[in-house]
């Protein structure tokens, strides 16, 4: 199975999880970790290491969903993900949004984290959409 770390600035990770509770219910495979103004970068790094240890337990891979490419959560996630000593294997995605978090529920049963990252990225791309009206006439053609 693949566990997910949701690594964000501010309280975004917690807020996204609160939202997902209303739609999908609990997401026990997701572990939030947040960089806040008062905690600073160093303590975030320690916290990330601790959360990673938890998320790695019993997992075939750990997928980190970061809010922003090249932000601190991203940099620290990459530091672990590209360390050849890291076990289990990790992958990192940037630009997490609400649908991506929900869709992570569908890749949690995979075993290859690289494949999980590719599938999730592909599926999440479709979540950025402009609202449009559908035609209102309804056919009787069932």
């Amino acid at each position: 199975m693949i566990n997910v770390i949701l690594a964000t600035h501010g309280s975004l990770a917690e807020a996204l999880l609160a939202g997902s509770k209303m739609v999908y219910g609990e997401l026990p495979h997701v572990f939030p970790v947040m960089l806040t103004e008062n905690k600073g970068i160093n303590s975030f790094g320690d916290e990330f290491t601790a959360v990673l240890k938890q998320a790695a337990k019993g997992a075939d891979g750990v997928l980190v969903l970061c809010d922003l490419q090249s932000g601190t959560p991203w940099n620290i996630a990459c530091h672990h993900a590209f360390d050849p000593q890291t076990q289990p294997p990790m992958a990192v995605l940037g630009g997490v949004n609400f649908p991506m978090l929900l869709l992570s529920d569908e890749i949690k049963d995979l075993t290859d984290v690289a494949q999980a990252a590719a599938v999730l990225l592909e599926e999440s791309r479709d979540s950025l959409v402009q609202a449009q009206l559908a035609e209102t006439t309804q056919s009787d053609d069932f």
Partner: protein
Amino acid sequence: MSISFVRIDDRVIHGQLITRWAKELPCDGIIAIDDAVAADPLLSSVMKGAVQDTKVWLFDTATAIEKLPKIIASEKHYFVIGKSPVTLKRIEEAGISLQNSNKKINVGPMSARATTTTIGPNQSVNPEEIAAFDYLSLRGHQIEFRLVPDASSYSWQDARQKLK
């Protein structure tokens, strides 16, 4: 039998949730039933626009009762979604069976409102809905509260215990 899934969901059509269920069960089209939504052409159109690859029909209860026999007789597989168990009760009272190949009525989100009791995560019922679930249960329907396919679930019988 061409109904492949019956669901109660107070958002009626929730794009991502429907897509999720459609990955598990055959879905050639979605029949959504709610009097208030059907009476609001703008909201109807917005909701239909949220599901892009699947055909969606939105009916009020009376129209649904008229169309469902033809839908059930079809070779295709349809999802039937009602906003409330009360809607589904009215349909069964009109003599239409909602028995389906998923063999149960699935219940998704039902928001907390003034007279509701909470029975699960984002699932709350008022007295009229309780009576409707009792009715559907007596009609032989298995009622399962489950937001998404992999989520934990409980039955109406389990929920009934909490309401005593």
